[in-house]
């Protein structure tokens, strides 16, 4: 076996080894060396992720059995088109965040770079794992990194918000274990492929227990994804933490969405016999209400970061809609929109960080204050991102929303989805125009003392903003790949197929 055969595990191993290396004194003592190493590692991760993407495009699903122990006994990683897209997304986001933080944000507290690496390890692991218990383990890895990152820089408000965030997620983790125990009790396995094989074969007295385990998992993933009514922690948490961390957290809600897709969209999906689509009756109203409540909160936001956090909730609702539509076409549209919304929200958080620096005490609140030194360039980026987030042409938000609206085929569903998604877009338009007016035009006097944004910060934002037009220019290729991802996702993977792929590799 060459090095190339181990490609699937690289997105987990690279951040792990780099994080451990960063803890050694010779690296830990020098911020400059830490920055160089993390940025180099992030670039390497982007390269690896895209190599893996092209490999999967050519050769189909990749399965990696750790220590060559075959499933269902060993631990396996499964990289299909959907998971590799998510890994690419997290790698690009990781690069932007480390670049941005190198401008000085990492000085505000200890261990910023190792924590970012551990966080990326957890995120990539959660996307690649083919085993429910390892999903739990990687969730914990990304969570404990996120607990510390959220408090990075300290301050009363961050501590107080972090108490809510940490305890909520600890309770979530306990429920996760209860759900896993319940499912193991009836299915006798925690391998995703094996579970999917065994669910249709359950005897009637085990159905109810399995169902309760599955729905408990929905609550756990829903907490991570911030779906109604488990979304209350999100706006405060994202708005009070530092800009690069908030940008990285834009993908954390997507980890929840991804898991709901894998478990409730596919494993308990159409092929699950008696338990087919058990989560759908819950997901459908929850998705619509999440969009509605997100849109209302967008209108009520008093600062740019809170506004952006509420836009994250709207995007979560939109993605839940595509899950509950339960068709390949809707899944493909959802995957395209997922890429777009994560990148756009992350870029907006980074931009809010620069705006906050340049406005002094007013931070990013919508109040009158002195003009920003670099209002011109910031305003330009703001308009681009606003167009993307609202979903207006010519950027990828428009394509994503159009694909979603197109994938709603039944009139009974269209009657709910169309007005809500278009209405949420209109509300985003109103709120973002108001935000832009307040931030850039409602000013009194010049400000000569404020900090200038550093080139590396603009590079990080530019990297993310540049993806939005690219997703339109290469829209055909991206949506084709999203289609492939949706088809592989919906087809599912049986244990037999899994082992065949593993043996061929």
């Amino acid at each position, binding site marked *: 076996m060459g090095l190339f055969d181990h490609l699937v595990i690289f997105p987990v191993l690279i951040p792990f080894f780099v994080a451990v290396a960063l803890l050694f004194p010779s690296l830990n003592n020098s911020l400059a060396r830490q920055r160089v190493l993390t940025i180099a590692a992030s670039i390497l991760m982007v390269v690896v992720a895209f190599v893996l993407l092209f490999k999967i495009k050519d050769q189909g699903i990749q399965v990696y059995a750790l220590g060559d122990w075959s499933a269902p006994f060993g631990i396996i990683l499964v990289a299909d088109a959907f998971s590799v897209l998510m890994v690419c997304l997290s790698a690009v986001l990781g690069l932007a965040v480390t670049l941005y933080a190198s401008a000085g944000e990492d000085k505000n507290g200890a261990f910023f770079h190792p924590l970012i690496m551990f966080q990326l390890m957890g995120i990539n692991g959660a996307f690649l794992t083919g085993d429910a218990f390892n999903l739990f383990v990687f969730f914990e890895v990304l969570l404990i990194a996120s607990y510390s990152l959220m408090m990075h820089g300290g301050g009363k408000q961050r*501590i*107080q918000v972090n*108490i809510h965030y*940490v*305890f909520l997620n*600890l*309770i979530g983790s306990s429920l996760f274990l209860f759900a896993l*125990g319940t499912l193991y009790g009836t299915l006798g396995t925690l391998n995703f492929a094996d579970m999917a094989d065994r669910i249709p074969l359950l005897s009637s007295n085990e159905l109810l227990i399995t169902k309760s385990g599955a729905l408990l998992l929905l609550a756990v993933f829903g907490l991570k994804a911030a779906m109604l009514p488990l979304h209350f922690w999100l706006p405060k948490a994202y708005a009070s933490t530092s800009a690069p961390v908030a940008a990285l957290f834009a993908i954390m809600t997507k980890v929840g969405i991804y898991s709901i897709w894998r478990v409730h969209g596919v494993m308990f999906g159409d092929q699950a016999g008696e338990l087919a689509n058990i989560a759908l009756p819950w997901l459908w109203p929850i998705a619509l209400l999440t969009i509605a409540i997100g849109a209302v909160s967008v209108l009520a936001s008093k600062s740019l970061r809170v506004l952006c956090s509420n836009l994250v909730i709207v995007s979560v609702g939109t993605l839940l809609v595509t899950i509950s539509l339960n068709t390949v076409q809707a899944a493909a549209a959802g995957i395209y929109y997922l890429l777009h919304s994560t990148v756009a929200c992350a870029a907006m958080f980074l931009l809010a960080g620069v705006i906050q620096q340049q406005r002094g005490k007013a931070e990013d609140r919508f109040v009158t204050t002195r003009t920003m030194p670099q209002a011109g360039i910031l305003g330009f980026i703001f308009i681009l991102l606003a167009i993307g987030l609202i979903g207006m042409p010519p950027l990828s938000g428009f394509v994503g929303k159009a694909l979603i609206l197109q994938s709603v085929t039944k009139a009974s569903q269209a009657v709910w989805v169309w007005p809500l998604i278009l209405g949420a877009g209109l509300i985003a338009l109103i709120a973002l125009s108001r935000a832009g007016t307040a931030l850039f035009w409602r000013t009194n006097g010049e400000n000569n003392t404020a900090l200038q944004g550093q080139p590396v910060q603009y590079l990080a934002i530019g990297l993310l903003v540049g993806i939005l037009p690219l997703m339109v220019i290469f829209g055909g290729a991206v949506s084709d790949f999203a289609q492939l991802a949706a088809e592989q996702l919906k087809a599912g993977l049986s244990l037999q197929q899994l082992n065949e792929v593993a043996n061929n590799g």
Partner: protein
Amino acid sequence: MELVYAVCVGFMSACGIFLMLRGHTFTLVIGLTLLSYAVNLFLFASGGLTIGAPAVLNGSENYADPLPQALVLTAIVIGFAMTAFAVILAMRGRSDMGNDHVDGTEPFDRLAAEEKS
């Protein structure tokens, strides 16, 4: 045996959840600890309860399912680390905010205020 075990796990979870519903970090940590004990026992039992059987596949028909034990071990380690983190966070919150309420401020207690006046 199953009934006693189930009742114990259920009672412990109920106590944990009751304590977690309080608004102070101290009771929250205790409640969380109880809940994680309960969840560890629950996981342990998820492979079925057997007495006097080895936890390895030794060729005989009579063995205890080894996987839940491995899972429990992982869950204990993770739970331990998380509880330690939660305790430190609670202490930090207590010293920064001056009280141990999860919202950072004690809610206004009308009855206590009337009693004082």
